[in-house]
């Protein structure tokens, strides 16, 4: 057990910190959240800056154009970027954290050469077409059909909860190529151009009032067979490989941000007098313990991931990733609920940053596997309890 950084890791941190402090003041002002083209441009410019400085695809394998950094270096990056107030990954989320890693592991050399460099340089944006109106937690029941017609698939169906759809160039699409095969058998993974004829994007308004995601309607969209990653009908495995790429450190930067918010919240309560309320103080103290522990868990997960990489581990998600997701999503909601208590009536002002965060935090226990699904995964795969229904 050792939490001290090696000399190499310290050097990495120092160089990164210097670069962040030099670079961040040169960034343009953040665009309005409602202006999607401006958001895309801003996020892509940041990605380009990372690329030029050698920080793009930090945790991607080197042979896929990444930097091959260790999980610890990645964790340091997330922490330093957050502490310096660097932009979030934003519109490049799917490209950098999901579609890209999938292609890096499962794509052919030609596919990697076509798709990965533009993601790293911030030139092409990806979105995700997995969930459907009738296939949410039970993703494997999805019904969007892809019928082979010569050298293309003809895709018909609908997808939902697709973030950044309006500004994306590509969509990683999970489709059914064999309608006779049940469940997760008979699915394939396709890369679809968002400007292909037959693709319709209909933005969805979230409960926070903003347009953060969209529905996709696919009407006989032609997708070249060459844009299938992995074998036909092997799309479920291809997708799962990527899910295991995330090893429980993805939200580590957000944990750093939450700890800072918590400290600000304590100061706000001190100023408005609510700090005198022991119940509120203790609630904030408990959140301090939780976020500190989550950061420690991220360090634990990074260490496990580093070990797995060194020993050629199979990348099965460990205990840590599910536990982290389950506790973090809940803690974030609890943080902004506590914020409303600290703010008092001002928390009912929807223009307050913390009120907006309180609203958006409600998605955390739903997106990327609901808390209920996380608990199923823990119970069945980690604790070995019999399969439920």
């Amino acid at each position, binding site marked *: *057990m*050792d*939490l*001290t*950084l*090696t000399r190499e*890791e310290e050097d990495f*941190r120092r160089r990164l910190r210097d670069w962040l402090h030099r670079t961040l003041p040169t960034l343009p002002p953040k665009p309005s959240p409602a202006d999607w083209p401006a958001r895309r441009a801003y996020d892509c410019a940041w990605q380009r800056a990372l690329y030029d400085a050698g920080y793009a695809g930090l945790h991607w394998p080197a042979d896929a154009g990444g930097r091959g950094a260790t999980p*610890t270096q990645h*964790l*340091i990056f997330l*922490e330093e970027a957050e*502490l310096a107030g660097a932009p979030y990954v934003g519109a490049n989320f799917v490209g950098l954290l999901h579609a890209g890693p999938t292609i890096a592991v499962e794509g052919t050399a030609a596919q990697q050469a076509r798709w990965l460099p533009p993601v790293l340089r911030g030139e092409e944006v990806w979105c995700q077409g997995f969930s459907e109106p009738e296939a949410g937690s039970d993703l494997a029941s999805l019904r969007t059909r892809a019928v082979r017609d010569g050298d293309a698939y003809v895709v018909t169906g609908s997808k939902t909860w697709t973030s950044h759809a309006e500004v994306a160039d590509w969509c990683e699409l999970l489709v059914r190529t064999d309608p006779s095969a049940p469940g997760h058998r008979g699915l394939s993974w396709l890369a679809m151009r968002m400007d292909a004829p037959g693709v319709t994007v209909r933005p969805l308004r979230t409960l926070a009032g903003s347009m953060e995601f969209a529905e996709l309607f696919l009407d006989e969209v032609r997708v070249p067979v060459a844009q299938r990653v992995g074998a036909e009908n092997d799309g479920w495995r291809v997708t799962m490989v990527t899910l295991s790429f995330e090893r429980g450190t993805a939200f580590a930067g957000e944990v*750093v941000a939450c*700890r800072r918010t*918590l*400290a*600000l*919240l*304590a*100061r706000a309560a001190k100023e408005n007098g609510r700090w005198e309320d*022991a119940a509120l*103080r*203790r*609630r*904030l*103290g*408990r959140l*301090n*313990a939780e976020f*500190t*522990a*989550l950061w*420690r*868990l991220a*360090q*634990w997960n*990074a*260490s*496990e991931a*580093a*070990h797995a990489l060194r020993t050629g581990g199979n990348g099965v998600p460990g*205990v*840590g990733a599910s*536990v982290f997701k*389950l*506790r973090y999503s809940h803690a974030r909601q609890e943080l902004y609920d506590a914020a409303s208590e600290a703010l008092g009536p001002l928390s009912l002002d929807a223009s307050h940053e913390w009120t907006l965060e309180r609203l958006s935090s409600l998605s955390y226990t739903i997106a990327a596997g609901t808390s209920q699904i*996380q*608990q*199923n995964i*823990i*119970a*069945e795969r*980690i*604790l*070995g*309890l*019999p399969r*439920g*229904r």
Partner: protein
Amino acid sequence: MDFRLSEDQRALRAGMRDLLVARFPREKLRESAEADPAKRAPLDRALWRELGEIGVFSLRLSEKEGGAGLGLPEAVLVFEEAGRALLPGPLAASHLAAGLVSGAADGTTVVTALEGAGLAEHLDSADAVLLCEGPTVRAFPVGDGAGPLATARPLRSVDPTTPLHHLPEAHEVPCGAERASRTGRLPVAGASATATAAAVDPGRLRAEAALLTAAQQLGSAARTLEMAVAHAKSRTQFGRPIGAFQAVQHLCARMLARTEIARSSVYAASLAMTLGDISGAKLLADEAAVRNARDCLQLHGGLGFTWEADVHLHLKRAWVRQAQWQSTERAEEALAAALLEGAGDCMTETANRVNGAV
């Protein structure tokens, strides 16, 4: 950075587990639980000496002092196993007294403590008591019942394996409140010895005691999770193991999440030793031990409510340990106060300032 256990650490933990399976099997725990509450279950002194011989108390003393020269991370692993087996006794106090009170290191002297909450465990079996309130640490012989122990009143302890005394006027001092100088020695010669003060940092001592108590809670939480999962796999109702029902699965999943959050918290605190880490570790490990015992009890149904099942012993011990060294209220208040003092800083760097942080 490599947070994982080293091979030596894993071996140490496994060795402690094997030893406790052999020397403190379930029958011994049950025997202790069956003792007449009025007689206040005496400590097994032979076992205490054995624990001393294998180095449970002297673990962190230098080899020159007869110890193993190991650190807090190793002590935490040993205490985790003790908690898992519900090994009774003032383990944290005796461990911290090693090198301060003669005979504590090898288990020939049993040292308990009177700490903030006004509780002292196993006072009748102990030879000496550490008094940890105020700016100094003092050791008193238990024998003459004088000094601060004069007003100690025995409780009918809720935990049948942990006799308790209460001192109503004692008051809790936050852990890590003072810092002080080097380690000294507290000779406790015998019943006639008077109170001695030494240049021990009481804040540091309280922090270490809280951490070692948290480690025991972690072990208990992991054990009740195992008991719950084993029961969920074997108990059949409605024609299937109850572990196939989501209501039961989710209960178990949350037990695991509590255990693992507490684990990373406790292990990290043993390395970083910051006040925030230690208070957080105590808080989360207490919660894991108490809540897991409760859930384990619930999952066992009527059986869980019986004296015969072991789960109530875990719950009751967890309640005792929760009150010791840093109560939930104290931990939460300490963590809240830390927020006003600039928590939210860089965490990896904090971890690099190992030792001396408290």
